[in-house]
């Protein structure tokens, strides 16, 4: 076929355009146009002279003045270590990750280079196909203390022996309580309830104070109802799913006991308020304003109450998770950063370096309590340094020892208020498979227990079981 002159010119221009755009695309996707600058996955830390741009989400936003200032300071400190690394940090306000928003982000493949997810979201994150296997990048050299991380944390970072995520927060659920209300109700604020029977009795006494004060509060919607049900079930020794993960196991004596107790507290004792709490954040204003005696939560809830809602820092105590006969098992949870696929080795190394600096290094980043103390001195906004929690290393690790020491020196919270929690470490159990879906189903059961005086709790739990079995079968 003969082409005339103009056709040939057009074909040449098209070919040149395609070549250029291909080159541009490959340069874009790798972040660098040559291999030396892109780096190699050799298990070594990032070369301090490497030039690389990375992005990360969940940086503190406008509602966390102190956190925001600390983060900005950390970015500057990191820059002195890695002068050619540029970090585009995306701030958040409220809850760092809203499940619905995260799902939409996964569908649009719109994550930042390092992206945040809760332990709960492992299935959804891996299912998105966007998470990078970083096994070749992580070791004790790139992440000091990596080998001494708690097994329950490692379980949540790895799948089939491959590492996909780095932890930045780890907690076991405990009992947050208002020490002032305990005193007013004639209860010992240094001895919070350690069994559910004790908790029920204490809630009754606190509610008797009147004036709109409720002894205990619990969730019944927005997936948080099922989340708390799971926590309470674990505390009694119950299981969410069978050992093979194929069937629901919560329709058990322990599961029924959870619902029955809450129902009794709501309708017989009247020690739970009539207002249902159906969203995560809705639980906090009543806690911050001293209207609630007890609530199950992670240590970071206390930080949120103080820093975001301006609650009195001395008002709260933290106890262990109540159980059947003493402190019970606890639902472990936490936050991770996954690394997005399609980045250069140097980008991955830089993200690991930043996460390690910001979240996993004693006396730096989130553990830079000395700096937080200085900032707190001049800050108009409340700063909470810091409620102790297991973080992610074993208790004997040098990391935990250093953090505990620094906290004693620099902390501004009454650490003895948290002794009942710290001195009674409970066994941590990980979240079930298809966690968000099971939690959503169990919202209905919690809603029945907390809103319907005539609820048939056995039937409600049986329905939830059949729904859960269907979901587990379709995994």
């Amino acid at each position, binding site marked *: 076929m003969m082409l005339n002159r103009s056709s040939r010119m057009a074909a040449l221009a098209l070919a040149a355009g395609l070549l250029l755009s291909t080159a541009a695309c490959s340069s874009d996707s790798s972040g660098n146009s040559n291999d030396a600058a892109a780096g190699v996955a050799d298990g070594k830390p990032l070369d301090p002279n490497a030039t690389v741009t990375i992005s990360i989400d969940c940086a503190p936003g406008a509602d966390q003045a102190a956190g925001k200032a600390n983060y900005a300071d950390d970015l500057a400190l990191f820059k002195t270590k890695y002068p050619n690394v540029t970090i585009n940090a995306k701030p958040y306000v409220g809850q760092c990750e809203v499940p619905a928003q995260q799902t939409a982000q996964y569908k649009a493949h719109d994550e930042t280079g390092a992206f945040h997810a809760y332990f709960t979201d492992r299935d959804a994150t891996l299912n998105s196909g966007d998470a990078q296997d970083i096994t070749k990048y992580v070791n004790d050299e790139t992440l000091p203390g990596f080998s001494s991380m708690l097994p329950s944390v490692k379980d949540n970072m790895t799948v089939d022996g491959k590492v996909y995520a780095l932890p930045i927060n780890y907690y076991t659920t405990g009992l947050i309580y208002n020490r002032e209300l305990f005193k007013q109700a004639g209860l010992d604020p240094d001895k919070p309830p350690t069994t559910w029977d004790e908790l029920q009795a204490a809630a009754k006494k606190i509610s008797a104070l009147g004036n709109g004060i409720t002894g205990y509060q619990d969730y019944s919607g927005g997936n948080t109802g099922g989340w708390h049900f799971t926590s309470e079930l674990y505390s009694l020794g119950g299981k969410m799913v069978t050992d093979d993960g194929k069937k629901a196991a919560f329709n058990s004596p322990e599961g029924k006991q959870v619902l029955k107790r809450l129902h009794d507290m709501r309708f017989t004792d009247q020690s739970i308020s009539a*207002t249902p709490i159906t969203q995560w954040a809705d639980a906090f204003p009543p806690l911050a304003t001293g209207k609630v005696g007890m609530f199950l939560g992670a240590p970071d809830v206390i930080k949120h109450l103080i820093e975001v809602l301006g609650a009195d820092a001395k008002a709260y105590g933290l106890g262990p998770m109540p159980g059947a006969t003493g402190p019970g098992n606890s639902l472990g949870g936490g936050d991770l950063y996954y690394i997005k696929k399609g980045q250069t080795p140097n980008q991955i190394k830089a993200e690991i370096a930043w996460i390690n600096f910001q979240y996993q290094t004693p006396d730096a980043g989130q553990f830079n309590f000395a700096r937080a103390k200085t900032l707190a001195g001049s800050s108009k906004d409340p700063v909470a340094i810091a409620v102790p929690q297991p973080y992610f290393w074993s208790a004997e690790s040098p990391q935990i020892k250093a953090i505990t020491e620094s906290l004693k020196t620099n902390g501004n919270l009454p650490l003895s208020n948290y002794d009942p929690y710290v001195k009674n470490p409970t066994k941590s159990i990980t979240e079930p498979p298809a966690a*968000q*879906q099971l939690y*959503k189903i169990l*919202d209905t059961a919690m809603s029945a227990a907390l809103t319907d005086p005539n609820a048939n709790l056995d039937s409600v739990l049986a329905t939830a079981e059949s*729904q859960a079995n269907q979901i587990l079968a379709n995994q």
Partner: protein
Amino acid sequence: MTTTLTRGRPGADTVRTRTPRRGGHLRRALARNLRAHAFLIGALLCFALFTWYPMVREIVMSFQKVRYGETHWVGFDNFRQIFADPEFWPAWRNTLEFTGIALFFGFVAPFLTALVINEFRHAQSYLRILVYLPVMLPPVAGILLFKYFMDPGYGLFNQILDFLHLPTSSWLASQDTAMFSLVIVSTWANMGSATLVYLAALQSIPGELYEAAELDGAGLLRRVWHVTVPQTRLILSLMLMLQVVATMQMFTESFVLTGGGPQGSTTTVVYMLYNYAFNFDKFNTAAALGVVLLLVLGAFSALYLWLERRGGEE
């Protein structure tokens, strides 16, 4: 074939007779209304991109599943899954319950309000603004107000009832009253637009008809029944269809106020769809549910058009 072109381009006032080629005819037809076609292309592109493409994509997705980033064809698996979901039929029951109650109040309240406003000689525009105000509020902000009004403990509504020595209600906190509470919120939030439409229809009725009816001795109710209703029949039936389609897709009220509870009593089909997509990470199952809803609403709209056409022929 010989075609007589009776409509020329502007300025071409001669009638020409010729045998056109198909392409030439099309080209001329396009050129004749170039501006109109340009506007049409814009609208068509918008529809194609934002309405038709998502619909086709939804139908395709309803037969697929995504696992670890890879898409597979799964036939009717997603449909089987939603039909086997124990929440499926209760969600339809809730949707129909909401539609039924909301239709009654959402239809009657704005119509009566429009009738009353229409009777005012003065201050009509102020009243129109007053009625339309809730529509101007962002929906979530407006709806959130009711979360506080309807709180069973400290809510405004219960305080008023208590002040009047009337029994208080659990409002959103009980499965017996939650759906009705949502209807109250929905009616408050949406009646402004319907009222304005009815008011416009009422004002287009010739005054002579009412005068004639009055001369014949018709009272207020008879005038409404024999003059107003027949004269606004077309608008009323159109609004009925639009309201059925809108209320069957109720989501915001449930999402903001009850989270689908208590005990799933306010979980509607669209709320269930949202859960599948965003809480369960099952977009394809959500797409299947969307297709089912599309078919139901499509069937209802077809039935409406058929009844309308039959009514028109009679």
